[in-house]
């Protein structure tokens, strides 16, 4: 009797071993939604990288005959008010969105993260001063601040990335500071000091690896927001200058034709909607997967 029970439990545990391995391969815990979202992001990223080599039409070549044609006619996704191919413009616009999202988030992450870790570790006047400055930036209407920055440093891709990145410094500084505050309380930081570690070593070895995960996890969600911010700028005509296509710029151009040709604004809007949704979804799932505090290891 007893041996039978033992046997069956061996069989069961072996079966669990197989299915656990299978689940690891197929990524149990992420679910199909995650993979659809991740696939979409991969597609957008590939478009951004290979835009020049993809078999799409010239995004800035106006073909007047195709003007405002709907999807699945002369053009797969239709043509805009100047007869330019919307698919081609989406593919090339992805480049602007991806570059700005990556650069702006990196700037915010590196500068804000560094400031936040230093503030959380050293406390004192530095922390109070920094937090006061950041509160002022946060209290400022961000669009006004962004317009001022763009007016000041120009409308190139780099300038707009830097301007949006600057806006992210306070948020990242706060995330990094909050996490640093909790990490420096831990005994392993004291233990490292007790083994003769210098301040720099503690910051790099003990604090940074523990703070970087939540900071990175915030990154994908932030990218989604950056794409929206960029489109808001484009809508006001202050993003990268025409004729370079951007998603926000396409929506902005489409608003003139809303009554007659909805697709001109709708197609880029849907594209952006799915991209931002995917960024949020993937970012959120990755965060809960890799957050040591949430996974019950």
């Amino acid at each position: 009797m007893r041996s039978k029970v033992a046997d069956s439990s061996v069989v069961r545990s072996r079966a669990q071993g197989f299915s656990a391995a299978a689940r690891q391969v197929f990524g149990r815990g992420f679910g199909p939604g995650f993979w659809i979202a991740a696939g979409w992001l991969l597609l957008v990223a590939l478009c951004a990288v290979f835009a020049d080599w993809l078999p799409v039409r010239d995004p800035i070549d106006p073909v007047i005959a195709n003007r405002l044609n709907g999807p699945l006619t002369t053009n797969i996704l239709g043509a805009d008010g100047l007869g330019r191919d919307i698919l081609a413009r989406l593919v090339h616009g992805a480049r602007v969105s991806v570059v700005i999202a990556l650069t702006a988030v990196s700037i915010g992450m590196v500068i804000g993260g560094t400031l936040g870790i230093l503030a959380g570790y050293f406390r004192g006047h530095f922390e109070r001063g920094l937090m006061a400055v950041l509160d002022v930036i946060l209290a400022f209407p961000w669009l006004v601040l962004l317009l001022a920055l763009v007016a000041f440093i120009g409308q190139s891709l780099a300038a707009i990335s830097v301007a949006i990145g600057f806006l992210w410094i306070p948020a990242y500084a706060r995330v990094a500071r909050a996490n640093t505050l909790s990490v420096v309380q831990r005994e392993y930081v004291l233990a490292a000091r007790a083994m003769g570690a210098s301040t720099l070593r503690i910051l790099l070895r003990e604090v940074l690896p523990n703070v970087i995960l939540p900071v990175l996890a915030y990154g994908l969600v932030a990218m989604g927001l950056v794409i929206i911010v960029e489109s808001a700028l484009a809508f006001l005509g202050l993003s990268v200058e025409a004729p370079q296509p951007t998603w926000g710029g396409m929506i902005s151009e489409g608003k003139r034709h809303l009554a007659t040709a909805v697709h001109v604004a709708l197609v880029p809007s849907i594209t952006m909607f799915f991209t931002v949704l995917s960024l949020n979804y993937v970012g959120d799932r990755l965060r809960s997967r890799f957050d040591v505090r949430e996974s019950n290891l």
Partner: protein
Amino acid sequence: MIDAGSHGEVLLRVNGLTVRLHSGNGLVHAVEDVSFSLARGQTLGVVGESGSGKSVMARSLMGLLPKRALAGGSGEILFQTAGGAQRDLASLPEKQLRLLRGPALAMVFQDPMTALNPVLRLSVQLTEPLRLHLGLDRQQARSRAIELLASVGIPDAAGRIDQFPHQLSGGMRQRVVIAIALACSPSLLIADEPTTALDVTVQKQILDLLARLQRELHMAMILITHDLGVVASRADHIAVMYAGRVVEYAPANTLFTSMKHPYTEALFNSIPRINDPSHTRLQAIPGRPPQLIDPAPGCAFAPRCQYAQPRCREQTPPVVTVADAPDHQHACFFPVSTIPGGRPHGR
């Protein structure tokens, strides 16, 4: 002046150590006028309840108290370095103190769950001090780290070294913490309640391990605990702390046979005994430990002491040496009269 006796060379001599800390409510008198000395290879047991200043004392020895919290202090911490020079750790600049932490002084912490960095592999955490202090290269440090893991009794050390802390049990983690602390063969190890967070069977293993490594490395140890039973058989000397002061200090067996301070007695009587008849009431010490902010004058234990006299509430009793035992000191005006060979327990 409390002395470790004539066994071996004195490694650490603490004179009148006083530590004040800032807190939200005022100045905490965390450590008051603590003096003791410790010889190479010897163990000092420090016993006291929570908040008696044990941990603050230990951390101040290594200069690990946060500077923001430190509100002042005095006293000397004279430490014999490997080169034979004597250094006052209390006045040593942080930079030089840092060089001593690891190769000369090391510390084992209470909670192995938080004393290891959760996001770094054991290999990183073990090799870090080796490379920093001993200048080993990556390969040397790694093989030394595997030796260290094996020496603290971790099976399959070569396989374990690339694991993360969460893959180890509490007892295993404490072994790793000990391995890290001993990586640079310190001459003084401070173990701050090393077994409090572990269950009883593992406690014994860890204490035995510490004792074995102490013998092998001929290292002095300060074993901090709130459990008299832990230090009874493992310490050469025992210091009983109460409200930041050492109220009694004696060789371990002297302390248990002829304790002088009523607090030591009360602590001793509160240990349940296996051969007590069943349903014997546990003897608790009435009252609560005093708050250390603006302490009242007089003996800190007086409000809870069954022998307290009016004088105890007015004057702070000085540390006195027992007439016939030169290394037995206590701080009580009315030391308890003792019966050699043991005390009657219970009332």
